[in-house]
């Protein structure tokens, strides 16, 4: 087993082909900038959904504060880029790290709570973060904070690919399995020597880190960040993507984020019906596929597998 085995090389190839096709179509104007923006948003939401899935789908902790971490990433990266004249990379890293730090700080006390209590506590924390930025006139306050657009589709796509790779590698490592064992049976996990608090906080911190990363990409792509963007409804939206795709499925989150974002963009011409249709999709899907589109299974590139002789 090595990093550059056939399977991973094929995966990389697929990514490069997808990227290449889209880039080609864009250059040839077959994809207009609005679709391009939608695709970048898809990338951002994929990172958000997968990172929420780490916390909720894999570690089993129902946290509803993702919009808050996204806000921290967005505002902190903007702080570095706009107010301190730092580089984009520094901004992104700082944003993600600050979100992770906040995740750890918030996670330590709240992750002792179970189920719905954790949900409402993290929802409250997300709102506190939003209210904080609403009151920060230094960072635009209620008007919103203008950030130059320095991220393009290439950045967003490869950062997304890297994030998904890192998170799925984590989940498929021994530390990731420790997180899953917390979801499966907390008491048994403890008895098997898993420090469940540590792994909950680890998953939470990691989720926050990547949510912050997504927020930083968002801030440096969307020209303006506004506290209203990061309300608890955004957390709901992200959770909906995860559950629609399937809890505990990385590819499910990718699909869920893609489907919901594209539905939302595709219905831009029917604004009155857009949210109603999204709501109906959520209800119908849950009623008829409560485990999401993919359940906890992963989409695999099996159709590409080279058949062995014999």
């Amino acid at each position, binding site marked *: 087993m090595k990093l550059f085995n056939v399977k991973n090389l094929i995966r990389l190839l697929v990514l490069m082909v997808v990227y290449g096709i889209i880039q080609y179509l864009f250059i040839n104007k077959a994809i207009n900038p609005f679709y391009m923006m939608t695709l970048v948003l898809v990338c951002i939401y994929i990172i958000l959904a997968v990172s929420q899935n780490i916390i909720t789908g894999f570690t089993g902790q129902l946290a509803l504060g993702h919009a808050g971490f996204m806000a921290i990433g967005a505002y902190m990266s903007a702080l570095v880029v706009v107010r301190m004249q730092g580089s984009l990379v520094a901004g992104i890293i700082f944003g993600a790290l600050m979100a992770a730090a906040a995740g750890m700080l918030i996670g330590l006390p709240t992750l002792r709570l179970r189920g719905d209590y954790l949900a409402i506590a993290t929802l409250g924390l997300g709102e506190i973060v939003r209210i904080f930025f609403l009151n920060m006139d230094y960072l635009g306050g209620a008007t919103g904070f203008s950030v130059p657009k320095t991220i393009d589709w290439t950045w967003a796509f490869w950062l997304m690919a890297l994030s998904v790779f890192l998170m799925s590698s984590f989940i498929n490592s*021994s530390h990731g399995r420790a997180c899953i*064992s917390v979801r499966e049976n907390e008491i048994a996990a403890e*008895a098997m*020597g898993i420090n469940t608090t540590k792994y909950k906080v680890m998953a939470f911190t990691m989720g926050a880190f990547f949510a912050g990363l997504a927020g930083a990409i968002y801030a440096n792509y969307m020209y303006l960040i506004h506290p209203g963007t990061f309300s608890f409804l955004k957390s709901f939206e992200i959770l909906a993507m995860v559950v629609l795709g399937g809890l505990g499925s990385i590819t499910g989150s990718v699909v869920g984020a893609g489907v919901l974002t594209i539905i939302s963009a595709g219905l831009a011409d029917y604004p009155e019906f857009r949210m109603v249709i999204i709501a109906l999709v959520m209800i119908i899907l849950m009623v008829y596929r409560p485990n999401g589109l993919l359940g906890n299974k992963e989409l695999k590139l099996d159709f590409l597998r080279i058949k062995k002789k014999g």
Partner: protein
Amino acid sequence: MALLTVDKLSMSFSGLKAVSNLDMEINEGELVGLIGPNGAGKTTIFNMLTGVYLPTGGSITFQGKKTNGVPTYKLSHLGIARTFQNIRLFGDLTVIENVKIAYHQHVSYNMLSGMFRLPAFYRGEKDMEEKALDFLKIFSLDDKAQELAKNLPYGQQRRLEIARALATKPSLLLLDEPAAGMNPQETRNLMELIRWIRKEFNLTILLIEHDMSLVMGVCERIYVLDYGINIAHGTPDEIKSNPRVIEAYLGEEAI
């Protein structure tokens, strides 16, 4: 030498005494049984020994160290492993993953190696895979390695729980009704297995069991509990003839 010493251990739940003033001593390499009627407080003792409950009185000493208040996972690192009366496997994971999770405390790579797929990750995973398969082989579960734990038949789930407990590399193994739900043949096999792993892994075992044939068959010493009180202890033969034990088990009319 005493591996585990329990001194005047008590546990009460909102005034209700589940265990009171229990004294117990288990020497290294011993195979000890803990019996008693339903509700006698046996599992409560396990929960105290593994740090799930904080005793309301008395002390527990393991390997010369006082362990009251030490969290469960740390006790596991110190060498206490257990199985559960109501099986607690990681149901949605495969059989081999269950064992790997127990082996996690001995993992040789760190989180970042895992995330970035550094060579240490591949070395560590390979090692873990082999070790886990070894444990499964002992319990003849290796052919089921890729099945989901929840899909195993009952008896195999019990065996997997023991395999998983062993993967933590314990020095003291606590078995909570390992033979529950097994037929006599399976129980006899289990007895053999318990004897064998004790020797092979140099273990000390404390087991709770209702199946008297198993307890009397494998245990060297037995503690008997009734209403949270230790009413007798001794060799299987002594226990069999102890009038208080008979009374506890059969009720007063039998006297």
